[in-house]
């Protein structure tokens, strides 16, 4: 077992033992389910909308070369600078370079999982820049020096009291349990930061090829301020975010809001197409778009799992995942948590290091059922398991599986094995739950049924006797 797998197991053990926290996450999601269903029903045909969305993303992802080129050239025509980053290092270096070139003093940033993926804040801070997250949830986890707990709800694991204590300790504010007061505390800090910042960093929810624009969806208005007040705007965009046409947003914006947050539409939906144009009164003087590959093209080359690039990062699969709900977002140790994270992390960061996440699933399929762009998530977990074994079989497990095949291809041996099991069963009962119990992984927390006195095939034989 590698270090990542050990860490995952340890974190999962701690989190599943924390009944209060498990209950909190369940309750936090209950409101989401009700709202999601309410707004899904406002679609005349939600399943049809999923089919359409999957087809649009299929078209985009399978013609990525063409659409990315179109996207980039239209942006450049309006004076934007587009940087094609092969990996995380190149993307970080480029953005740090832009900050240095402009002798930036302060950076404000809106929410971006792609920036999390490349650990952009760490790189900027190491280069001596101050970065402040402007999304409230992100700001809270930044103050706690934690990664986001969930793709969409970064601070969903925290109670108001914890946030109040955090603000009190870090910002010197009065303690309060009133959400509006807590928001106002953060807002006062944030407003000052917007005015001081001379560089704004954002992600993008969609990249529209037809018009060369990025689309950003948010509820707090912070991304608008982040991208329009500072003199430089840098947007970091995963190459899979592309959509062919502007009109595709008519489907994707309500779909993202519904699936992701249980909202009919997110409060602010804005398109950004370049730096300030001649005659325009405001907006950044420079606009950089960093297009990030970071091994997405390897996923693109995998025809079986290519649809994982359809992902619009709505987080719906996390919200329905019984694993996520019981182990929580931090246990994964990845940028992308939940089913989509378990599927793509092995591609982005190495199969052997991250295969345990594909194993940590009961394959229930709730993720695939809910995914608005119809990614075959739980089957991809099976594919990852197969690929991992194929590349590097686990010696002991391989032996067990070979034994399993040997027995299951020989019905008499199988029957004999079951008889032996029945004879040994009383012995297992003596050591049940102890270290000697071969079924300990099960019996430590659950009762185990006895083997029946007579198997079905024995009963069947008796019944057939004349």
């Amino acid at each position: 077992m590698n270090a990542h797998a050990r860490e995952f197991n340890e974190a999962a053990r701690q989190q599943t033992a924390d009944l209060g926290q498990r209950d909190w996450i369940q309750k936090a999601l209950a409101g989401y389910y009700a709202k999601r269903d309410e707004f899904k029903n406002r679609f005349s045909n939600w399943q049809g909308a999923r089919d359409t969305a999957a087809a649009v993303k299929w078209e985009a992802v399978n013609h990525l070369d063409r659409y990315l080129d179109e996207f980039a050239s239209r942006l450049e025509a309006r004076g934007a600078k587009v940087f094609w980053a092969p990996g995380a290092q190149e993307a970080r270096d480029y953005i740090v370079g832009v900050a240095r070139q402009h002798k930036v003093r302060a950076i404000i940033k809106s929410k971006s999982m792609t920036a999390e993926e490349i650990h952009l804040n760490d790189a900027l801070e190491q280069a001596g820049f101050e970065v402040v997250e402007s999304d409230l949830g992100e700001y809270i986890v930044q103050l706690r020096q934690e990664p986001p707990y969930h793709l969409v709800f970064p601070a969903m694991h925290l109670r108001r009291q914890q946030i109040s204590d955090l603000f009190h300790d870090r910002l010197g504010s009065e303690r309060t349990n009133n959400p509006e007061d807590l928001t106002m505390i953060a807002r006062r800090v944030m407003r000052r930061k917007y005015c001081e910042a001379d560089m704004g960093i954002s992600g993008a929810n969609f990249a529209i090829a037809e018009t060369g624009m990025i689309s950003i969806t948010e509820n707090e208005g912070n991304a608008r301020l982040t991208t329009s007040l500072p003199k430089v705007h840098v947007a970091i965009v995963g190459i899979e975010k592309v959509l062919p046409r502007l009109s595709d947003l008519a489907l994707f914006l309500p779909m993202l809001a519904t699936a992701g947050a249980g909202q009919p539409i997110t409060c602010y939906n804005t398109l950004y197409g370049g730096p300030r144009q001649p005659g325009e009164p405001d907006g950044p003087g420079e606009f950089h778009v960093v297009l990030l590959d970071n091994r997405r093209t390897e996923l693109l080359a995998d025809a079986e799992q290519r649809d994982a690039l359809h992902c619009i990062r709505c987080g719906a699969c996390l919200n329905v995942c019984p694993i996520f709900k019981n182990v929580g977002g931090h246990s994964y140790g990845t940028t992308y948590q939940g089913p989509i994270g378990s599927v793509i992390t092995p591609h982005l960061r190495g199969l052997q290091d991250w295969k345990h996440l594909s194993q940590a699933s009961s394959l229930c399929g709730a993720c695939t059922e809910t995914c608005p762009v119809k990614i075959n998530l739980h089957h991809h977990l099976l594919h990852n398991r197969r690929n991992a074994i194929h590349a590097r079989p686990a010696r002991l497990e391989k032996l067990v599986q070979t034994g399993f095949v040997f027995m299951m291809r020989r019905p008499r041996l199988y029957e004999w094995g079951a008889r032996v099991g029945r004879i040994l069963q009383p012995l297992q009962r003596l050591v049940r739950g102890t270290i000697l119990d071969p079924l300990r992984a099960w019996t430590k927390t659950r009762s185990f049924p006895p083997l029946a006195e007579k198997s079905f095939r024995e009963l069947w034989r008796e019944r057939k006797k004349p």
Partner: protein
Amino acid sequence: MDQFYPQTGMNIVRVLERLGHSVDYPEAQTCCGQPAFNSGYWDEARAVAERQMTVFHDAEIVVIASGSCGAMLKVFYPELFQGHPRESEARALAAKTFEFSDFLVNRLGVLDVGARFSGRATFHDGCHGLRELGLKNPPRQLLQHVRGLELVEMQEAETCCGFGGTFAVKFPMISTAMGEVKCVSIAETGADYVISNDSSCLMQIRGVLDRQGKSVRTLHLAEVLAQT
């Protein structure tokens, strides 16, 4: 089913025979191969699957007591044998294989098997039956026609019980936590029985209920439908 829950099998036979069908049980059958398949050992799974394909080659219809094993034959055998010389045989077996409730409702059009069973029960959707085979309604339709049975829905009916095959012992802490969520939801209904069409889910649910000291009884769908 063969080793732990033989009565489930016997009850399926009873129901099918009551409906006028003749049932055979080829004794050369063993396991569908899902444990190997789910663990990533597809070559090994194929070797086991080939054996079952041969055993059931001449059967007219194959009825399975579990949504999970059913999904293995119906959904995953065709994938496992894609591009393999026996692909068409795998597809043929998939087409004639039915999970028990699927066979009764969708193939035979039978909703009322003439069963009588008194008590308050809630139904647990096994994930494979529900999502791979799309069998939300058939077991419920059958149960609604059982005289004396009161069927109540639990909040978490569609939430996984946490079994998941080898997952249950590779990640026992997560599996148990999931089982606890399920069992809390079962208890909330005040039901005397929890019924499912998957013995493996029932083994997990029973296992957790026992540790919680809950007296709710676990029953396979066939055990209810066989009662007259």
